[in-house]
């Protein structure tokens, strides 16, 4: 799968259209001519997930959970309505569970069978999340996978891996970094990385972001 990644960068060169590119174009034309799809609807679908829905949504959820104890309680009791409060809901996020990282427990989310991912809060998954290396090793060697991301956890930290085999989607709520007391939700959200909400990364520290 990932063996094809290097080809992607050449696709902007329209002088050589790949077979896949031609097939996709042909199929879109057929489906449009038959009235099954409206190209304007396709454009809107793309715009939604390329420009509007992405990990900044999840970062808002995490920042609010860090800053607002009542919200945090609601989020861990039933995440789907708590996340909907912020306006994020729908496809591939119909049933969300929030996972609380603690000093002794680190959560990591995978879909070994396909590419299940909480779209309303994280957007579309990165290539690595859908790749064979991640899907094969996250469940059997999570510490090795974390090392691939440059993350090393204390040996005594328990690692809990969640394989998304049903329609439940998991969002990791990482630990709030020290030195952020009194920060606004806006500022806190700048520390929240996509990978920290999947469990393959940690939030940024205050010194990692520009003052």
């Amino acid at each position, binding site marked *: *799968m990932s*063996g*094809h990644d290097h080809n*992607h*960068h050449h696709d902007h060169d329209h002088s050589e259209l790949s077979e*896949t590119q031609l*097939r*996709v174009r*042909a*199929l879109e*034309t*057929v*489906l449009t001519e*038959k009235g*099954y*799809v409206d190209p*304007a*609807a*396709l454009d*809107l*679908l*793309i715009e*939604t997930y*390329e420009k509007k829905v992405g990990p900044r949504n999840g970062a808002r959820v995490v920042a609010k959970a860090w800053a607002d104890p009542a919200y945090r309680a609601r989020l861990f009791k039933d995440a789907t309505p708590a996340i909907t409060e912020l306006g994020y*809901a*729908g*496809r*591939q*996020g*119909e049933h969300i569970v929030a996972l609380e990282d603690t000093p002794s427990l680190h959560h990591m989310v995978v879909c*070994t*069978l*396909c*590419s299940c991912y909480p779209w309303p809060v994280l*957007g*579309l998954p*990165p*290539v*690595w999340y*859908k*790749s*064979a*290396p991640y899907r*094969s*090793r996250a*469940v059997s060697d999570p*510490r090795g996978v974390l090392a*691939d*991301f440059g993350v090393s956890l204390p040996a*005594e930290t*328990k*690692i*809990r*891996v969640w*394989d998304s*085999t*049903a*329609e*439940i989607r998991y969002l990791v709520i990482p630990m709030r970094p020290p030195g952020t007391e009194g920060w606004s939700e806006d500022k806190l959200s700048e520390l929240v990385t996509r990978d920290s909400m999947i469990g*393959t990364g940690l939030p940024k520290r205050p010194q990692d972001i520009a003052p």
Partner: protein
Amino acid sequence: MNGAQDLGGMHGFGKVHPEPNEPVVHAEWERRAFALTLAMAMPGEWNIDMSRYARENRPPAEYLAMSYYQVWFAALETMLKERALVTDDEIVAGHALHPPKPVARTLSPSDVAQVLYRGAPTEREIKSAAKFKASDRVRAKTINPVTHTRLPRYVRGHVGAIERVIGCHVFPDSNALGAGENPQWLYTVRFDGRELWGGDADPSVVVSVDAWEPYLEPA
């Protein structure tokens, strides 16, 4: 099915390679393949479990050689052809050559936001008591269906514990066959890493899957 999609625990794929500042898509065709897949869910000619089966039901070497959007697109072509919505000669010609088959509905631009926001919840009304409760010990059954299932091979035959009773959800094994939603109790089942991978495995690891009641037996 025991296909190449069921990757948990396999060896030999090497390291994970995160791409710094990765764009949401890497090529224009990925945008269109993604959007076509979403839009073509609207007519209701198939459900999400049929889509997943169409994606995984191909020779393992072929599956593993494809990028993920290539898998999606190949499944879309397969499902369109199986239902005679599109024919091979049309794909070759790149144009409609036959009259369209009537479909229940299509996705209009004005409906996109609402359709996405509504999603497609899979929780269903409870009609029977759950067989298991939290902390019950259960064994994932040894099953090898040639059709769609969501019980990964790496947990089959192993003993774990019910962590959470989630609710009644559409049962993919039935839904993928067009045999109805057949809702079943769904549980989060946790397994000790050493139970799954043996005594040499990292003792600090616990892995869970979400498993429907028909996948489980008391242990």
